């Protein structure tokens, strides 16, 4: 993966920093080279081609309801989320969430009526924001706790006593983030690389710009690429025995004129059998380490699974789907779109799905 030079440079060599500061002339080194200082951020993308893990554990069903507040869980499961990646937040404190709520609602009110200053403390604003920590989502000690943001507002023609409704929600999370990367960040940075939002686009962009101005971070589109979509298809299929898929639906677009869209729905049982046949080969090979291997899924298996599905399609319709782009995968357990929209329907698989997406988000980090 990494060349030894990198790992030397990467170990947060505190002594080196101290030394550097003691020299008056050499401070500049801290931004001069990505082979030097900044590559303490481990995976300097220029040097080590970061890739998605080529092997990952199967989705394990977790009885997450015991760990996580069911109310929060209900919110996470309910909606379809538009994903973004976020660079590490500077000076974000989980203890300041109350104050952030106030600030963000004041910010939204101010932006809604440009040129009008609004009171930070005031609660008369038409938008109420709530920040909360979703306890129990973090998988390792390195993961920062997930943060849930909700915006409530009264509908335009609401009655006097009608309660405020949630009009927007979003979350920032980091599940099983690459420990090397997380460790390499200096103190003061909080890495919550995956951002999901659901609600009016206007509010999403307001929330984003508030975060940018407050925590000096950047938001970028996170699309779910082909490989990740294939991973999700395989991972979900792998769960079929535990909870039924109902269907495995995939949408391909074929680059022809006029554009052609193929919706390919597979019977869950057939998909499962195909998947098992792919898995069996692998399992046979490593009989002795069965315990270990049975849980891990390899990228090759995923590729072969997809190949199987494609060749089946070819046999029937004489159309090679490899020429097209996989746009969407959906099952009863969830759906994912290339454009970066994801819906996780079953709380049991939420953690492992988010871990995959966290990995995708970390890959997008500029440094």
């Amino acid at each position, binding site marked *: 993966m990494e060349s030894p030079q990198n790992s030397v440079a990467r170990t947060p060599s505190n002594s*080196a920093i101290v030394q550097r500061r003691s020299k008056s002339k050499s401070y500049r080194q801290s931004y001069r*080279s990505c082979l030097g200082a900044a590559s303490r951020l481990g995976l300097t993308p220029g040097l080590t081609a970061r890739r998605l893990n080529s092997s990952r554990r199967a989705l394990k069903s977790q009885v997450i309801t015991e760990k996580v507040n069911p109310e929060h869980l209900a919110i996470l499961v309910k909606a379809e989320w538009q994903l973004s990646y976020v660079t590490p937040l500077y*000076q974000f404190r989980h203890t300041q969430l109350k104050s952030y709520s106030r600030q963000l609602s004041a910010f939204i009110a101010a932006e809604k009526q440009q040129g009008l200053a609004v009171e930070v403390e005031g609660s008369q604003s038409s938008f109420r924001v709530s920040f909360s920590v979703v306890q129990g989502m973090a998988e390792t000690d390195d993961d920062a706790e997930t943060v849930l943001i909700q915006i409530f507002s009264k509908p335009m023609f609401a009655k006097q006593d009608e309660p405020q409704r949630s009009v927007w929600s979003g979350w920032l999370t980091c599940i099983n983030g690459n420990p090397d990367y997380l460790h390499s960040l200096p103190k003061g940075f909080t890495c919550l690389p995956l951002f999901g939002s659901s609600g009016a686009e206007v509010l999403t962009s307001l929330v984003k710009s508030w975060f940018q101005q407050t925590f*000096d971070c950047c938001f970028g589109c996170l*699309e779910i690429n082909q490989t990740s979509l294939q991973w999700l298809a395989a991972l979900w299929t792998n769960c079929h025995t535990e909870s039924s898929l109902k269907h495995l639906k995939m949408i391909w677009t074929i680059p022809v004129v006029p554009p052609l869209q193929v919706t390919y729905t597979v019977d869950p049982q057939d998909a499962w059998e195909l998947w098992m046949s792919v898995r069996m080969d692998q399992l046979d090979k490593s009989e002795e380490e069965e315990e270990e291997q049975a849980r891990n899924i390899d990228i090759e298996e995923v590729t072969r699974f997809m190949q199987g599905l494609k060749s089946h399609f070819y046999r029937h319709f004489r159309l090679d789907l490899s020429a097209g782009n996989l746009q969407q995968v959906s099952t009863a357990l969830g759906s994912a779109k290339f454009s970066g929209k994801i819906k996780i329907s079953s709380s049991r698989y939420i953690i492992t799905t988010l871990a995959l997406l966290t990995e995708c988000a970390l890959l997008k980090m*500029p440094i």
Partner: protein
Amino acid sequence: MAATINLSDSERSSPNDQSVSSRSSNRSLRVAEKERRKNEAEDPFVLALKYFTDVEAGTPVYGNDDFERNLVLVEKVAYSKGLSPEAISVMLEFAMSLRMGSSPCVRVLKCLIPATVVPQEAVVRAVVWLGVGKIPISTQVLFIKWVLTVFDMIDTKDQLRAVYGFIFSYVTEENLCPFICHLLYLLTRKESVRVFRVRKLLELQSKLGRQPFLLHLLSLYKVFCPELVTLSIPSRMRSGFRNHISPWKSALIAVQKRNGLQVASSMSLAFTIKDKTNSRKRKHCHLEVPALRSVVNKEAQTEKCSSRKVVPLVQLHSFAQLLENMHHIELPAQMGSLLGSSLALQYLDCVQDESALLRLNFWLGYALHEEFLFCGDGGAIQNSEDALQFLNKLLSAHHFLQEGFSSSEAFLYKFLNVWDGSLLRPQILGLLSNIPVVPSSQIGRLLFEPLTQLFFTSSLFFKCGLVECLNNMLLKWLTWHSVYALEDDLDISLNSHTSINMTLSGFKDSVMELVNFVGQLASVGLQIEGCQSLLLSFVLDFYETVCDTFLKYGLPLVVMPPSGVFYPALFALDPVSVDRLAYIMHRYKVNLTSAKAQEKLTKQAFHISRQTFHEFNHYVVDMVSCLWNSKMFQPGMGVQLGEELLLKSKVPQYWTSFDLIHHPAFMSYAVDFHQKCWPGKKDMDLSSIKHSKPWSWYLEYLFTQGYDGLKQFVQSNISRQLTASDGQGDTQQR
């Protein structure tokens, strides 16, 4: 004479004056004339001031000739020379105390033209009178306008700031509010921003709607205490407060001109809002440099800086202020905003906080990646105008700091693999030349592989650009080395200065890799482009850097050019290239000799390999025998041709064909020289120049044409006393 002019001056301004009738001004003219004749001995002005100091409350105005006479006198002085500080105090006190009612108030205020400064006490007292007396509201407005106009002439402002709260209380007065806000804007310090004041302004805002004066004051509050005010400023609004100089303008300018002062510059207050000239919606907003804002969540950082007073960067407007506050500047909320302001860039040079630089790099890396690598529309970059501006801004920051950012470096390593070599070429090559030293183990994969591909598939101009870029890169590396290696010359490793774990030998390896790489590119490139002289010129630029690494930059490394560069330059069709090659060879010699001398002197173990000396000597011998001794194509030379092939070419005396006379680059000079030397001679025999006398003349002639490189080469490599026989190239150094 002067008096009458000034009087008419005052008359001209009186029509604006609502309270004074033209009749009374006519009368004042008469009275003034009389007065001047009568009281020549005593200073009437002093008496007039005394009158206004002593006049009792309740004295009637109408029909009061004393009053009229004295006021006219004061006006006369005011409009001609301006009023002294004392006079201002007296008159202001007289007017604001309403001792003779409110009617003379306006007239007095209009003539308060300061000659030098306005005493602060007078203004403070007047402000106090504002609260006591029953001054008509229009007069109150006039007074505040006057304060705003002369604000920069008020000697000090500490007492005025002390009554900030008092002044603030007038903000509720609807007619006064815009002017009070302006005054507060000028007086506000961080201490004056309080929650209850913010509340009051917000309350007013809800009553009056979005008024620009409230917005401006609030935005200043936001600069000082961002945690108290949440406000977004519409992009259209940028101008500051209006100025209210009009009632005094002509008089003030006239007085100041007479007194040789500059017009107070306070009149236009720059209100710093980000200049959004193009309001069109941008598709790619990530290329926008964020605005400079101060941090909102102060409490989050208090443990760090509670003990020190910090000044947000937003509040600094000049380099002097920056210097003054250098040690307690608070970084802005978004580090990326530093790129947008030249003042902030100055500061960035001194930022030592690693996380601050990391924040900047995150933002910069994000912007570059989003724009050039993640662009969704299949790589078609539509807004290249924005991208161009962004990169230019980044480049100028690089140039200012004299080095690049790590995120732009990391970005380039990726981008080179997908670059077509033409998109924003000057900018990308500019960024590339700022890349710091790359370890030799990585340099091939990161730089050379993508660059080789680009080089051989792109146009001549790209090739030239790339060679130039690599030359700049080498220059920067060498400069970096000379700066850091000199810092402590005891240690041969560069370790202590950099986070790059690089020893001197590691650095040498990297430089060698780079030089060899350019050598390879140049050899093949020159071949592909038919030894194009433009490309050759860029290559020779590069070797001008390379030949001087030891003497100029103290790097004990000498790398000779490959023959693919040497011979094309030697046989170039233009004399300039040959001259430059001669200069380069001369510098190589100087470097090698002094390296050798130093090696003997210090007995230090840096070692320039035999191979290098051998190569050098070989080149010099070739060059001398070809240019000087007319011994081309002899066995042992770098360029050899078969005997029968040479005979077949039927070139007579082919061995002379590249000497200084027959060399295609110098032939025209030889012809010219021949004509000058033997003007009458009909048949031209260039070989006759070869004789010892004309030969040395010919050389002199060439040197006067500006071929200094040749001159230096000849002087250092050829012993001239031997020229009498047939010239002898020397072969020194082993």
